[in-house]
């Protein structure tokens, strides 16, 4: 479901438009990721979900809080590498085309400056909507930290992919798949538990 586009390092600054929404971050050391999926729901509905910015907390896998300040401004708080520190920032919607596109960037002073866009386009044959998220950011700690982050699931590409996956499941299936909270056998006391279980008469 993800596009095959891998994160690319943009050397010498991210100048010029990277998508039609012209998302760029000012610093020269940015990382860009693009991920896409196709959802069997109308673009208008998907756009409406995304435009209600507080909804995004449902589909972002890591804990984050999002508070709407105005129609175009929201206050975000999330943990970030390295070391899962809590960081906060303000996000501004900079482009908004109903049912087609939303683009945003961080307000001045964000610790991790980033900009992003989500596009909603009908899939060929009108079979659902192609949703493409582009995200460009200045990795905290520079290039080396970005490389380290890439090796863990904290990497932005994986996070965007996971967010899209959850967005798709929620809008298409009505829920996000999970096994958290299901029973499992006791793997800790290997031998003893086995004997116990075998000796016990089951109801």
């Amino acid at each position, binding site marked *: 479901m993800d596009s095959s586009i891998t994160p690319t390092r943009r050397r010498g600054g991210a100048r010029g438009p990277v998508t039609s929404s012209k998302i760029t971050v000012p610093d020269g050391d940015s990382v860009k990721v693009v991920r896409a999926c196709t959802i069997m729901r109308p673009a208008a509905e998907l756009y409406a979900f995304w435009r209600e910015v507080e909804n995004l907390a449902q589909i972002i896998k890591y804990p984050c809080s999002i508070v709407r300040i105005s129609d175009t401004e929201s206050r975000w708080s999330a943990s970030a590498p390295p070391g899962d520190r809590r960081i906060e920032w303000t996000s501004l919607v900079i482009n908004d085309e109903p049912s087609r596109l939303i683009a945003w960037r961080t307000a001045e002073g964000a610790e991790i400056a980033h900009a992003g866009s989500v596009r909603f386009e009908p899939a060929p044959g009108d079979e659902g909507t192609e949703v493409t998220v582009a995200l460009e950011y200045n990795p905290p700690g520079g290039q080396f930290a970005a490389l380290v982050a890439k090796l863990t699931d904290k990497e932005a590409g994986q996070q965007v992919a996971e967010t899209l996956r959850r967005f798709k499941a929620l809008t*298409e*299936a009505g829920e996000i798949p999970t096994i*958290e909270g*299901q*029973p499992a056998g006791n793997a800790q006391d*290997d031998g003893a538990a086995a004997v116990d*279980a075998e000796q016990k008469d089951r109801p």
Partner: protein
Amino acid sequence: MGKRRVEVQEVREPRILNPRDCIVKITSTAICGSDLHLYNGFVPTMEKGDILGHEFMGEIVEIGPAVKLRKVGDRVVVPFTIACGGCHHCQRQEWSCCDNTNPNAAMAELINGYSGSALFGYSHAFGGYAGGQAQYARVPFADVGPIKIESDLPDAKVLFLSDIFPTGYMAAENCAIDPGRSTVAVWGCGPVGQFAVRSALLLGAAKVFAIDRQPERLAMAQAAGAYPLDESKLDVHERLKELTGGRGPDAAIDAVGMEAHGSLYDTVKQRLKLEQDRPFVLRQAIRAVRKGGVLSIPGVYTGMVDKIPFGAAFAKGVTFKMGQTHVHRYLRPLLEMVQRGRIDPSFVVTHRFPLSRAAEAYETFRDRTDGCIKVVLDPAA
């Protein structure tokens, strides 16, 4: 609990985790041939304490708030693949390719490029869902998967709608059988092979050849009308050629998969972890199928295979059909066949154990001792 080690433990009861879930109180559950791949340690991403089992049925005892069709008290058979019903693949009846049921899809994507649907009790790359060799199971998408059994057919006649009957049937359907003309060779007369043999005959195959080395398995296939070939006693390739007027069978079914016997080379490589799967049957089937024929693969492969005669497949223009079964697609038509008496799937059951003796049941099934072909477990005992 580790390689070749299953245990019965008391765990807490499953509960509703998502709005479209239901909880099923299990009345019958079975051990599948593919469980042996897990048991023998050939499927990565299993964890100690994982609950196995993907062939089960029972009674719904609880439903989530978004469940509309299924009700508490419904007697249901649960497909082993978990599907949402709403994604592109589900809508195209490609249920085992469902996009939305694997919470660990990223893991599967890393291995396979894309993730298929989740499966019950079949490792974390396939979702990590607790399986049905248990007294209760949580079943997601209660309105999509579980089929309600309205008639009073006994469990043994409908239980196998969960996997092996649809799996054998899809394998036969994939052979594009021309009624009264086609010949089909089935490698492996385990439970899936048995259903493939019967399905091919139901679909009108003129001749079905059943290949195995266990006399009781060959006899069971023969009883259905197949021509048995004991691969330990004859040259399968030459014999098939002879029996098909020199053309070769129109379709070949590999109902064995990654743990085929017969090749020391692959066994050693698999043990040394140089190869994940032992594709001995696959190689033989590719060579044996006729020019322009179909190779249908219901047997499970999970990783890399070595020395596949791809040139032979290319030279002959062989069509490959494979994949996890789109179980949901077959539930209704196959249940109808059972209700009309065209097939009685309970023929395959050779052994019954109480769930409390599951460890012994696994050993018996793995070693094929005592003529063991299919084991059903009783969760109440």
